[in-house]
């Protein structure tokens, strides 16, 4: 559009005049004016293709009435549309009769039956009966086109929605039309399954029951489902979802179209990540270890046992001998309760929701020029310097892909190896892991003039995170400084794993943060005095510091909240040693994990489908989660357990309900003033971006720049997260856990030759902090000189954060 002012034209639909936006497609203009035109192939988030023909309507543009597809024709002034005329009806009925010529009428056993656009529109716009007596097409069915999606080609009406999605939206066109003509079918290439991280979206898109999801097949009838809107905690953007439950059991999530975040799309992890909720391994009662064995007990006893020892340590050694790790997977209300519990009841600032693989807390929480996700749409240049968004931030991946592919943003991607966005990037820079800082300096010195020119655009959005475990947080901060120093306006989106890290930081779950993005200081503590009383005003230890303190004995007691440092901390051996050395560990978790098995008391927690609360996403958007089922057994929300523990310790927190906590947050946390549940449930259903304070409360001190050991010879180790790993929730979700890569190392063909290894060989990798055997995969996306080991894979040993690695073929 040339000018900012929208232009309107007048069209007549079924005898009534409407003012509609110029240039809009007739199908949307009609819908906005209250007239529904049937559709199968048309989808508001994808390019119109005019494949299904059911939206044909009689239109007169001054040259006499003619039948045209409403999805392919923009409105023009004076257009006269007849959606109910005999001609239109006859045409639409004919199209439906044709679409049903081959469609099997197995609706009673079809997952889609009851929510099927073909079923619904055959009723509303169809002829009622068919003249076809011929035998319908027969195909083998269903065939799995991916690990999660099954295809029934007999039901398919060839609308091009799934294939278009894979082509336009997710960028992995592994399904296509084959045998075009009378026998057109959708399928995959032999032995190249639809292995997309976004394959589940095609199930939701499919206007018939041709694509069905393995985890949902034959589990429920749509009309029996109880539904509630919530947000996914498998994605840092918190895509909006609808949670569907049948008989108190979650059977699926569907994406909710939301302009602000996900546009209705979900990664398969966010779509199918519900099986852990019903895992048989979930804890349903508090556990107390007696004589080395866990015994189920009641809450009163578990609270007494857990709290008495924590109180004893506090009385003997002071709050500095206690620590809290975790809180990034829950709600803001629980995070606030945990933050308050640590400060008020335990008397410590040794609290961290990050697990040692993260940017500095002040950089994450205190970036005043933080971008919103929506700004990606208007950006001239987008810089992605951090994790592979496709693996770790799927919603951002789709939004950046769209901005680069559809909206004309120039995309610069910097990462140690190939990423999912390379094909739409105008420039891709690859560096050896651990040498990120050198690349920043090279950019600063003008080594890549095209990149600098792109960064000098008027409107730059930079997504910055830790690309490789070998890169310290200082690389990200140097990138931020580089971007900020350029000519135009720049906004930053600091990236972090674990879905509610931002919410947790905003609630003060960092050694140097208090609720509301306030630093730990005399002044900050003073502001909280009315609600929290006297709390320590000196910053505490971060997770690495806490683990070291546990090993040295300076820290005696630890509370683990939904954290699994033994699997999730970049140097797991250190975490294992620390938990082993700890005198007293209390855990709040869903499962017994490699970490919580070190606890003396484990308190059973609730998942996000079982409690209410708010969460804050990567851009600072607060959204409301809603519960749909009770937690199993004796599970309780975190805040209630923490309140009981505090009571027993003798420092009550005064928490009475999650909603009351949210009110307390909006009183004490400056950024959250006015963000109430009422607001989020009624006026701001897509959430609100909490304002960043005008005067930055957080005087950000850049972390010290470590000089990277530049290595001329030898291999460099790149460790990064993948979508499917051995995380606690995934491990208990059978459909997803089998998709994890396992213990593999990806090696460039040249390096494979140099190592004298062939695919399938085992490589022994040795670093300063670990060694292990990995199955070698030859991969051209990994540059020569770098070997890539996906982090936290089932059966894999961790190799730490150092980039130096020795590799050799392991004996069979």
């Amino acid at each position: 559009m040339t000018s900012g002012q929208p232009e309107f034209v007048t069209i007549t639909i079924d005898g009534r005049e409407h003012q509609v936006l110029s240039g809009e497609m007739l199908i949307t203009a009609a819908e906005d004016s209250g007239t529904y035109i049937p559709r199968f192939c048309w989808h508001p988030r994808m390019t119109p293709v005019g494949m299904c023909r059911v939206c044909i309507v009689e239109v007169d543009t001054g040259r006499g009435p003619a039948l045209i597809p409403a999805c392919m024709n923009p409105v023009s002034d004076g257009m006269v549309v007849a959606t109910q005329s005999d001609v239109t009806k006859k045409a639409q009925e004919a199209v439906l009769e044709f679409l049903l010529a081959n469609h099997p009428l197995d609706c009673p056993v079809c997952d889609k039956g009851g929510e099927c656009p073909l079923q619904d529109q055959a009723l509303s716009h169809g002829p009622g009966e068919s003249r076809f007596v011929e035998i319908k097409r027969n195909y083998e069915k269903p065939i799995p086109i991916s690990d999660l999606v099954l295809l029934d080609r007999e039901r398919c009406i060839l609308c091009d929605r799934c294939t278009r999605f894979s082509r336009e939206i997710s960028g992995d066109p592994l399904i296509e039309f084959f045998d075009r003509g009378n026998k057109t079918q959708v399928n995959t290439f032999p032995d190249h399954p639809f292995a997309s991280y976004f394959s589940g979206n095609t199930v939701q898109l499919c206007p018939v029951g041709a694509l069905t999801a393995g985890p949902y097949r034959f589990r429920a009838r749509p009309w029996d489902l109880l539904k509630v809107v919530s947000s996914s905690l498998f994605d840092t953007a918190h895509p909006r979802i609808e949670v569907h439950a049948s008989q108190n059991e979650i059977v699926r999530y569907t994406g909710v179209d939301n302009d602000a975040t996900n546009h209705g799309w979900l990664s398969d992890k966010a779509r199918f990540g519900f099986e852990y909720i019903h895992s048989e391994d979930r804890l349903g009662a508090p556990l107390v270890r007696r004589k080395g064995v866990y015994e189920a007990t009641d809450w009163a006893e578990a609270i007494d046992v857990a709290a008495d020892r924590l109180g004893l340590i506090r009385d003997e050694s002071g709050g500095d001998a206690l620590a809290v790790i975790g809180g990034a997977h829950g709600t803001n209300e629980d995070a606030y309760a945990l933050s308050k519990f640590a400060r008020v009841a335990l008397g410590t600032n040794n609290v961290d929701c990050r697990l040692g693989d993260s940017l500095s807390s002040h950089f994450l929480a205190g970036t005043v020029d933080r971008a919103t996700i929506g700004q990606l749409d208007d950006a001239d240049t987008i810089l992605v310097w951090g994790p592979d968004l496709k693996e770790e931030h799927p919603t951002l991946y789709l939004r950046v892909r769209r901005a680069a592919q559809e909206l004309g943003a120039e995309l610069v991607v910097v990462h140690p190896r190939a990423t999912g966005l390379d094909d739409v990037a105008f420039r891709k820079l690859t560096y050896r892991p651990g040498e990120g800082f050198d690349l920043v300096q090279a950019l600063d010195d003008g080594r890549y003039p095209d990149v600098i020119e792109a960064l000098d655009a008027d409107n730059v959005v930079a997504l910055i995170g830790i690309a490789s475990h070998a890169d310290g947080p200082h690389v990200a901060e140097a990138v931020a400084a580089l971007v900020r120093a350029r000519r135009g306006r720049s906004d930053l989106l600091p990236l972090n794993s674990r879905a509610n890290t931002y919410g947790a930081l905003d609630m003060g779950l960092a050694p140097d943060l208090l609720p509301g993005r306030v630093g730990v200081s005399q002044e900050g503590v003073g502001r909280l005095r009315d609600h929290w009383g006297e709390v320590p005003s000196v910053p505490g230890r971060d997770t690495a510091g806490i683990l070291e303190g546990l090993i040295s004995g300076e820290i005696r007691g630890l509370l683990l909240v939904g954290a699994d440092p033994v699997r999730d901390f970049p140097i797991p051996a250190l975490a294992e040693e620390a938990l082993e050395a700890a005198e007293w560990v209390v855990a709040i978790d869903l499962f017994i994990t490699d970490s919580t098995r070190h606890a003396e008391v484990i308190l059973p927690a609730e998942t996000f489908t079982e409690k209410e609360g708010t969460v804050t996403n990567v851009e600072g958007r607060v959204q409301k989660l809603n519960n749909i089922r009770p937690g199993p057994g004796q599970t309780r929300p975190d805040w209630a357990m923490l309140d009981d523990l505090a009571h027993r310790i003798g420092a009550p927190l005064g928490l009475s309900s999650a909603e009351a906590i949210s009110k307390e947050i909006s009183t004490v946390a400056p950024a959250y003033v006015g963000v109430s549940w009422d607001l989020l449930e009624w006026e701001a259903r897509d959430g609100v971006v909490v304002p960043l304070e005008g005067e930055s409360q957080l005087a950000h001190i850049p972390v010290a720049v470590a000089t990277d050991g530049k290595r001329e010879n030898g291999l460099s180790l790149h460790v990064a997260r993948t979508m499917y790993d051995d995380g606690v929730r995934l491990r208990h979700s059978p459909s997803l856990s089998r998709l994890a890569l396992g213990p593999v190392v990806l090696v460039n063909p040249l390096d494979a030759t140099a190592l004298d290894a062939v695919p399938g060989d085992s490589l022994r990798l040795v670093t300063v902090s670990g060694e292990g055997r990995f199955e070698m995969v030859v991969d051209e996306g990994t540059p020569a000189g770098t070997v890539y080991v996906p982090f936290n894979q089932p059966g894999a040993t961790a190799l730490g954060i150092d980039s130096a690695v020795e590799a050799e073929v392991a004996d069979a």
Partner: protein
Amino acid sequence: MSHWSESTQERAREIIDLYPQKRSAVMPLLYLAMAEEGHLTETGMEEVARWCEITPAQVLSVASFYTMYKRERTGKYLISCCTSISCMLLGGDEVMHAVEDESGVPHGETDEEGLLSVEHAECIGACGGAPAVQVNYELIEGVTPDKARDLVTWLKKARPVVVNTDEMQELFGGRRSFDWAIPETDGAIGPFPAFQPLGTVESEGGE
């Protein structure tokens, strides 16, 4: 990591250089893949996908639309009998049956020896000389069922290195649609005349 011979790869590079986008080269590269292995295999299509930087599914989507991309093993001589309307009215079906009967190869199949493949084709643009038959896409017009049997026998016995329209028309053809056509002395070779300038097929001198 290419499975193709060095010369095929060189030709692939030349073809790709002709287009602003690599994916545009998918159709000529499919002919290359076919020339390399005799027909289109999954490996061949995967190779084309790599060269064009698209997915194998996208390559197959193109390849499965066009009947001239053969995804099954095809004989040395491919006999295509037109059965579209003009040829059908003038006895195309009988010609087709005669070819099938004489060769013992039904539509869409190849004999065991790998000598003959038979297919019925949609309109091959020779309505004026119906019924028409092609051998390796070289046209013969005005074919009768008897002449068609002779054609099959000749192919089996003579096994010409190169088949040529003018020669076959002389031996087995009848009335032509364009009698004034300039005699084709060189003849195009094999199924790929359009791409001969690109070097995707061997020239007449070759085997």
